[in-house]
C-alpha cells in the first residue's frame, strides 16, 4: 500500500473536531529519543544510519499502538509523497529532505507518527485536532513506555534523555499548538502577544514550524525549555499561556467588531470576492485570504459554509495536495490556475458574506 492509499482522504480528515478548534487548529507533543552510544543521525555515516534504521523501524512497527501502520524508508518516498506528509504536518521539512537511512512510521488514525533519524534517532509525535495537549501527552507517554523496553535509550539520571541538540535535553519534549489568530493580526496586537510568549520562554513560529512564515495568520506556539521541569509541568505552563492567547484573540475579535465593524467586513468581503472569482492565485495569497474567510465563518457571516469544508479547502489548495488531483505534472503557473478553478468551484454555492446578526 502506498502512502496515498493509506492516508484518509482530506474530506474525511477534515471532519475531525476538538475542543477550542475555533482558534486552536491542532495540538502536538513530540519526544526526542536516542540510542545509547550510537552516533546521532547528523554525525552518523550512512552505513551507521542504515543499521540504526534497521534496528529502530521494526521495534516501532511492532508496537500495539501502531497497528495497523504505514512504514517506509525515506528513500522509498518520492519528493511528492514527502510534500504531502509535510502539508499534513506528519513530518518536518527537515525530515522530508532525508534519504537513505531515515524512516517514517504512521498509525491508522494519523494520531501517532515516528520519524526515524531526523535530528535525533527517534522523533515520536502525537497529534490531535483542537486543544488536547494532555491527551497527546498520555498517548505519547504510553507509546514511549512500550518502546523503551525494546530499545536501549540514551538516558542519564541527571540530564534525562540525551539529545543531539542540548536545547532538547532532559524531557526531550516539545509541546505545541497551532493557532489561528486573525483578530490579533488585524488589531495589530500580534507582536505584543509574540513578545509576551517569548518572555515566558515559548517560541512562536509559522505554519510549518521552525523558520517558516506565519501564512494565513496561523502561528505555532511551543515550549523551548526541556530540562528542569517535568512533562506535566511544561504542559500545564504552556496550556495556561495558550488559554490566555485564546482569550486575547476572542477579545481582539469582539473589539474589532464593536469598534471597526466595516474594516472587518471589508476584509472578509474582499477575501471572498477574490477567492470566489480569481482565475489564477498563488498558494500564499490563498492562505492569507482563506484566513479571513475562516474568520467570517467564526463570526457567522457564512451560513452555508462549515469549518470542516474550510479545513478541506485549506488543505487541498496546498501545492502537493493540489497536484494530487491531477495526473499530469503541473508547473507553478498551472497550479495557480487550477487552484483558482478549484476555489471558484468550491465557493460557487456559498452566498456572499453577510454581516452577522447581533
Amino acid at each position, binding site marked *: 500500500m502506498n502512502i496515498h492509499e493509506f492516508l484518509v482522504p482530506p474530506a474525511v480528515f477534515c471532519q475531525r473536531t476538538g475542543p477550542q478548534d475555533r482558534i486552536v487548529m491542532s495540538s502536538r507533543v513530540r519526544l526526542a529519543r*536516542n540510542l545509547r552510544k550510537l552516533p*546521532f543521525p547528523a*554525525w552518523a555515516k550512512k552505513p551507521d544510519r542504515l543499521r540504526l534504521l534497521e534496528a529502530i523501524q521494526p521495534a516501532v512497527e511492532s508496537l500495539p499502538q501502531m497497528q495497523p501502520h504505514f512504514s517506509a524508508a525515506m528513500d522509498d518516498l518520492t519528493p511528492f509523497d514527502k510534500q504531502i506528509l509535510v502539508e499534513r504536518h506528519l513530518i518536518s521539512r527537515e525530515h522530508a529532505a532525508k534519504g537513505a537511512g531515515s524512516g517514517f512510521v504512521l498509525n491508522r488514525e494519523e494520531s501517532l507518527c515516528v520519524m526515524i533519524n531526523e535530528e535525533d534517532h527517534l522523533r515520536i509525535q502525537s497529534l490531535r485536532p483542537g486543544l488536547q495537549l494532555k491527551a497527546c501527552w498520555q498517548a505519547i507517554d504510553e507509546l514511549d513506555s512500550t518502546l523503551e523496553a525494546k530499545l536501549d535509550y*540514551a538516558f542519564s539520571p541527571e540530564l534525562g534523555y540525551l539529545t*543531539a541538540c542540548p536545547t532538547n535535553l*532532559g*524531557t526531550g519534549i516539545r509541546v505545541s499548538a497551532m493557532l489561528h489568530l486573525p483578530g490579533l493580526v488585524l488589531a495589530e496586537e500580534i507582536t505584543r502577544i509574540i513578545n509576551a510568549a517569548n518572555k515566558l520562554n515559548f517560541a512562536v513560529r509559522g505554519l510549518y514550524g521552525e523558520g517558516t512564515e506565519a501564512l494565513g495568520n496561523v502561528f505555532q506556539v511551543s515550549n523551548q525549555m526541556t*530540562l*528542569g521541569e517535568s*512533562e506535566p509541568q511544561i504542559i500545564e505552563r504552556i496550556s495556561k499561556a495558550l488559554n490566555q492567547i485564546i482569550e486575547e484573540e476572542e477579545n481582539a475579535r469582539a473589539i474589532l467588531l464593536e469598534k471597526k465593524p466595516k474594516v472587518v467586513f471589508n476584509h472578509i468581503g474582499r477575501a471572498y470576492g477574490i477567492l470566489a472569482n480569481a482565475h489564477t492565485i498563488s498558494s500564499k495569497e490563498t492562505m492569507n485570504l482563506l484566513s479571513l474567510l475562516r474568520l467570517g465563518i467564526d463570526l457567522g457571516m457564512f451560513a452555508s459554509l462549515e469549518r470542516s469544508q474550510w479545513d478541506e479547502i485549506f488543505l487541498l489548495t496546498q501545492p502537493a495536495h493540489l497536484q494530487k488531483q491531477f495526473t499530469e505534472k503541473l508547473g507553478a503557473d498551472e497550479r495557480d490556475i487550477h487552484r483558482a478553478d478549484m476555489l471558484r468551484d468550491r465557493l460557487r454555492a456559498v452566498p456572499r458574506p453577510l454581516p452577522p446578526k447581533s
Partner: protein
Amino acid sequence: MLCNVCKQNEAKVHLTQIIGDKMQKVDLCEECSKEKGVGDPASYSLAELLLGQSLPADEAAPEAAAVPETETKCPTCGYTQADFKKAGRFGCSDCYVTFADGLSTMLKTMHKGLRHTGKVPAALQQAREAVQKLKTLQKRLEKAVAEENFEEAAQLRDEIKRLKDKAPA
C-alpha cells in the same frame, strides 16, 4: 566602529552575549564574521559558551584566537569541540560526558534547571525504587538490632535477602 578582530574594516555584525550577569559585546566586520563562522548566531554563542571561552572583546582577541586548541575528542564517536562549534549539536550520547566541562554554563542559558525532573524509563525507575527500599530496610534493621528487637530484625533480614536475590547487580 571598527571590527574587533582585524581593526581595519567597519564593523557590521554586532553580537551581544549575556553569560550569568555579565554582558559582552563583540563587533565584527563582514569578512571576520564569516571567518569566525558567525552565520548562525544561535550555534555560535552555544559553542562559545560550551567551550567556556567567550570571544574577548579586548586587545587579546586576535592572539587568543590564534592559539591552537588542545582538542578533546569523544572516545565513543570521535566528535571534537570544533565539530560542536560548527554544528551546535553533539555526536553521540557519550559526548555529554566527554564535553561535560562548561556544559552547565550553556544549559543554564537554555533551560529552567540543570537537573532532569521528568520521566524516567521504567526499568531505571524500578531499580531506583528497589535501592531506596533496600536503604529503608537496612535502617530499620539497624534500629531493630539496637533495640534488641530480634524477632523484627530476623524478619527484616529475610526481606532484605529476598530483595537482593530478586535484583542482581
